[in-house]
């Protein structure tokens, strides 16, 4: 256990702090839940400044417009901590930057890298992800959007759902069934689709929060060049798994839980009932402390993961449990915030008595969506059990919706 940093890192931390202090005037305003909107010129300018300083696209090679530093988890972690502590927005977090770029770096052709990466990291070309379909939620590999190669073009038909940012993205990376006769996982290809291609229709998907955080995207004879495929035909599932590997720092990110918890703490010091603060209520305080223990546990767990990464070891369970732990924890934090507000906790959208712009109710619902959306708790627990504990996979069985049995016991008693 050695939590001290080499002088090099202490210096680096100072450098980041100085940068933030000197440049924070250029940072776009903090984003609240209400305005999950398209990044604009302010964000792009800030991103350019960050790339130049090495605080965004840090490890992307210079030839593709990045800063070109060697990967160093600790540096990344220091950058994230300092921006978060200063309350200043860090680099753009679009799905193109987080997921597509590392994937192309790993399996893309030189042409694809040169064509897509520079514009992705500046935000000039915004990406969305076409994975989920209405019929394939947790069972992603059962997707049905199909692509047929006609001459030098893919012709795509089908439908995607849960596509964040599709209404302003220029590009989509997309899983499409191109080999209908191959086994389920081997029939999928990873295609890159310009969103302005004729036949692409984006329609907003309103959710329970009352907003349209997501879209549906329909493909009707959409034709894209045959070269817009990453890796080979039928290798889309493998490519997607490369991509998933890079999906870090998002779901289950301790920084998010810490920030959420701090908001809750402020709220509980502010809200009163009959003049007495919520935090002085023994039962609310008890729940607050239960959550603080979990937030801290997640934070230190993440330091274990980081350590393993730094040393090139597999953090195993410590990493696998993070998403499940973090998303459920965030949802519990939201729930306590609502309860601490009492009756006022149900307010939403507007009004004099609305707290924190109604973010807590919005999060309470949105986080439930994340618990479901990033692989339901059941899928998460399967992953933990099967990959982390080496328990056997679910046996194959076909049970159609019709013709259910039932009526007799599945087991006896003793």
């Amino acid at each position, binding site marked *: 256990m050695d939590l001290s940093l080499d002088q090099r890192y202490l210096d680096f931390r100072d450098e980041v702090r100085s940068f933030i202090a000197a440049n924070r005037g250029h940072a776009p305003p903090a984003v609240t839940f209400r305005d999950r909107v398209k990044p604009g010129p302010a964000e792009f300018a800030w991103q350019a400044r960050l790339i130049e300083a090495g605080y965004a696209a840090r490890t992307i090679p210079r030839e593709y417009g990045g800063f070109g530093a060697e990967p160093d988890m600790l540096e990344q972690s220091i950058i994230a901590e300092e921006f978060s502590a200063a309350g200043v927005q860090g680099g753009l977090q679009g799905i193109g930057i987080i997921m597509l770029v590392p994937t192309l770096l790993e399996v893309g052709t030189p042409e694809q890298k040169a064509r897509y990466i520079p514009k992705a990291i500046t935000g000039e070309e915004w990406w969305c992800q076409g994975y*989920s379909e*209405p019929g*394939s*939620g*947790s*069972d992603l590999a*059962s997707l049905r959007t199909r692509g047929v190669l006609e001459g030098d073009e893919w012709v795509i038909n089908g439908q995607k*759902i*849960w596509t964040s940012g599709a209404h302003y993205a220029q590009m989509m990376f997309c899983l499409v069934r191109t080999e209908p006769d191959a086994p389920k996982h081997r029939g999928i290809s990873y295609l890159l689709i310009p969103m302005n291609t004729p036949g692409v229709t984006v329609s907003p*998907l*309103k*959710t*329970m929060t*009352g907003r349209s955080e997501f879209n549906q995207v329909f493909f009707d004879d959409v034709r894209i060049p045959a070269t817009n495929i990453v890796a080979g035909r039928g290798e889309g599932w493998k490519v997607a798994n490369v991509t998933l590997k890079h999906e870090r720092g998002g779901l289950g990110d301790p920084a998010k839980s810490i920030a959420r918890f701090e908001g809750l703490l402020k709220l509980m010091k502010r*809200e*009163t*009932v*009959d*003049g007495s603060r919520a935090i002085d*209520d023994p*039962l*609310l305080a008890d729940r607050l402390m239960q959550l603080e223990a979990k937030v801290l546990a997640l934070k230190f767990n993440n330091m274990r993961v980081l350590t393993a990464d730094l040393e090139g070891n597999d953090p195993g369970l410590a990493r696998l449990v993070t998403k499940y732990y973090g998303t459920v924890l965030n949802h519990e934090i939201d*729930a306590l915030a*609502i*309860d601490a*507000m*009492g*009756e*006022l*906790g*149900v*307010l*939403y*959208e*507007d*009004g*004099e*008595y*609305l707290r924190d712009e109604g973010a807590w*109710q919005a999060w309470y*619902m949105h986080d*439930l*969506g994340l*618990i*479901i*959306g990033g692989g*339901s*708790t*059941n899928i998460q*627990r*399967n992953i933990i059990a099967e990959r982390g504990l080496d328990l056997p996979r*679910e046996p*194959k*069985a*076909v*049970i*159609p*919706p019709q013709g*259910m049995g039932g009526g007799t016991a599945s087991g006896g008693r003793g």
Partner: protein
Amino acid sequence: MRFGLSSEQETFRDQLRRLLNERSPLERVREVAAGGSGYDERLWTGLAEIGAMGVLVPEEYGGLGMGAFDAGLVLEELGRFTAPAPYLGTAFVAPLVLSESGSNMLAAEWLPRIAGGEARIGLALAEAVGARAGAGVRNEHGRLSGTALMALEAGTADAFITAAGGELWLVRSESAGLTCTAMTSIDRTRALAELRFDGVEAEPLAGGKALTRRALDLARVALAADTVGAADAMFEQATAYSKQRVQFERVIGSFQGVKHALADMATALEPARALTWYALHMQTEMPGSTEAHRLACHAKAHLAEVGRMVARGATEVHGGMGFTDDLGLHFWFKRIGLDRQLLGSPEQIRAEAAAAMAA
């Protein structure tokens, strides 16, 4: 002895369901919710026609003079359909509180109109549980001043039963000095409002603290009944969905993960329903008794917890679909969410129940 519905009650419930199926399907709920009044004329008239409005109104005032359990059936069905109808204040709390206040004049004025579906009464009781954000209403020589937040079923109310100075008052909506500002909540099927009182004339309801507690007991058990209906509806939708939705070549209801989640919901919900039924029953069987109070506390607090668990679990069983606006499952989710927060958190209400027991 029968713990449950009589055949007359079953008939009544069937009648309610037919009415609600016809006049309050989801698409209609959606429309009314968009308006935010928490009120649907056609549904309200229908409820009056089948006698639902007068269940607790004494026969002498044109009602049926039945028990709280009968009225609870209406509440449960309204919850099941997330129906926008200010029944809780008007037809559940008001008839009993006005009858018990001993004012024949008020009773004679309001009860026949309640039974006939011609009047609506909101509840401004939040501050009797705990005043938030500096709110509170004072009585100054029979005139009320101050602020009441989260007044319930306020959208089209003709009058409010208002707690002030430890007592209850009837305040007419058109009174001079009263301002009513809508408060927007997650659940648009019920109208909430901020009431500002500036020396507003009000009619006192005799009964003091006991009547205030009585009104709270009634409102709380009514919210519990609403949650029973709403949670039941979510649970049933989740069960049905789990038998249709296929993932990994299997209906998802064949996976233990889903199966056990549904079994847990059933296990929480079935006994919780029985608890609520008994709590309803006691409100007119032993009105105002310690036992009735205790049961009202337990029903409200317990259903708040069970409701939250079912609302979350049933949404999760639906996967992404449950999160969409289109499916509309969120109307129940939000209704249960509102019921939970109103008139005392589970912790607060349990503390009340514990104080009585610890003595």
